[in-house]
């Protein structure tokens, strides 16, 4: 059975630079990220458990949204007209967010990014459960990071594990935790 070990959220419109400075401060690569990756990074900093920064294959990362990297894609598209920007192009994929989380935390397990028409808790839970089909996976960071605009986003994430002491990871508890 999957259980919730930790939950983190970042209210829409939060000043992410200020949050980074207050809670992390020692990862300058943060400033190169697009808004979605910054959110994924900051959420995982709140979820992080010990041991940190030891390469591990047993933790999966799954991120969900309605628009993937669309906000950044639009910034990149503007530059194509004269000088395409490589640092913006790097972020024009919905799964770079999982890459940034993995790079920071050395998570070498399965990573996926899902784009849904709307937030669907049943789908969210089912896809996270599916990731645990792989016997190697013992825990997963799974989150909803939906960036409609650089200052207009929804972001929350769970650290889920097999048979832990926390609440069961199911649709009911998902609603309960997110709506608190």
């Amino acid at each position, binding site marked *: 059975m999957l259980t919730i070990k930790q939950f983190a959220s970042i209210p829409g419109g939060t000043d992410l630079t200020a949050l980074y400075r207050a809670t992390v401060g020692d990862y300058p690569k943060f400033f190169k990220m697009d808004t979605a990756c910054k959110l994924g990074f900051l959420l995982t900093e709140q979820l992080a458990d010990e041991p940190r920064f030891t390469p591990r*294959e047993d933790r999966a990362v799954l991120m969900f949204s309605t628009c993937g990297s669309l906000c950044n894609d639009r910034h*990149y598209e503007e530059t*194509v007209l004269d000088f395409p920007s490589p640092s913006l192009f790097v972020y*024009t994929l919905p799964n770079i967010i999982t890459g940034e989380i*993995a*790079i920071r935390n050395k998570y*070498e397990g399965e*990573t*996926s990014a899902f*784009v849904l028409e709307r937030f669907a808790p049943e789908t969210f839970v089912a896809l996270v459960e599916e990731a645990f089909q792989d016997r190697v996976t013992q825990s997963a960071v799974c989150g909803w990071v939906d960036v409609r605009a650089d200052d207009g986003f929804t972001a929350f994430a769970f650290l889920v594990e097999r048979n832990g002491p926390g609440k069961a990871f199911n649709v009911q508890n998902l609603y309960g935790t997110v709506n608190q």
Partner: protein
Amino acid sequence: METRVHITGAGVVSAVGCGQGETLDALRRGASGIAPVRFLQTEEKAFPVGEVKLSNAEMAERCGVLSDLSRTSLMGILALQEALEQAGLRNLAGIPLIGGTTVGGMDLTERTFPSYSPLHDCGASTDAIATHFGGAPWATTLSTACSSAANAVIFGANLIRSGQADIVAVGGSESLSDFHLHGFGSLMILDTAPCRPFDATRAGLNLGEGAAFLILESEASRKRRGAASLAVLSGFGNACDAFHQTASSENGEGAFLAMRKALQMAGLRPGDIDYVNAHGTGTPNNDASESAALRRIFGDAMPPVSSTKAFTGHTTSASGSIEAVFCLLALREGFIPANLNWMAADPACIVPTAGGPASLKHILCNAFGFGGNDSSFLFSKSDA
């Protein structure tokens, strides 16, 4: 509860041909499909590409499609059509569809930008494919860059292994676009000459486009329908390199872990592998990193390895499924496709094979995406 996953149908469209027949012919002749840009509307003419040699109108005619669909959907429809026919299926009734793409309907939007085509997004591109075949019970899209189609295959296989589905259609499709042609150009990883995977002088990749779909089926469903098994998907793995957003680590950690997982799932040892279809994009970075990973898996007993990207170009999101079909053709025909354009050994790289007839039972296929998303899968002969 796990069941063997069979492949009962396969379809492919790429720079080397439309359908398995044309594809096999090109692979045997060593005929590359890399050429100057012809169909894509772009100012960027410096880089050769692997385009499907059909216009959208020609593809629409072959599909019997009247509406103006994106090139990504059109190629996907052609490929899925072939796969369904081979599997003896008329449409997607009762068959979920899992597609992989990043570009989606970008080609349509590029004609109308700054307004976006309603068919722009990745989901719409897969939905259009499903709609063409009368609708599927459900359809979804995976978008993990160059491992998208490979991950669609893995997702479908997991559904069957866990008993949640009996039969699924999986694969990917990607058309060229100005957006990503410029993007890869800005990363300076494109070659102005045809790519040379694993070669000492390799200088970058050529972008390609195409689509491929597989019908995956459980043992029970296959028997019930009396469908022939093309091969078994005996193992797969996905792991994260956790190194850089777009470059691969020096010791190929993600690739190594993915290949190791695939072997472990299949219960095979490295010595059982008869051929590896490498990711082999032709960039200095990937080929060295993948070689390091291959050496860690196989040691001194390296099986024949080739990259088929000098035939098709790097078909990005579709590459995992296109190259899967090449592996199926190889298994069926007992033939290894060549690693074209290789001339000089690089000590940092494996020496690829020139291909040819071979006795093949187990084939490993790699597909690595940006974000360090690395996937590997294993095809085995059905009676192996």
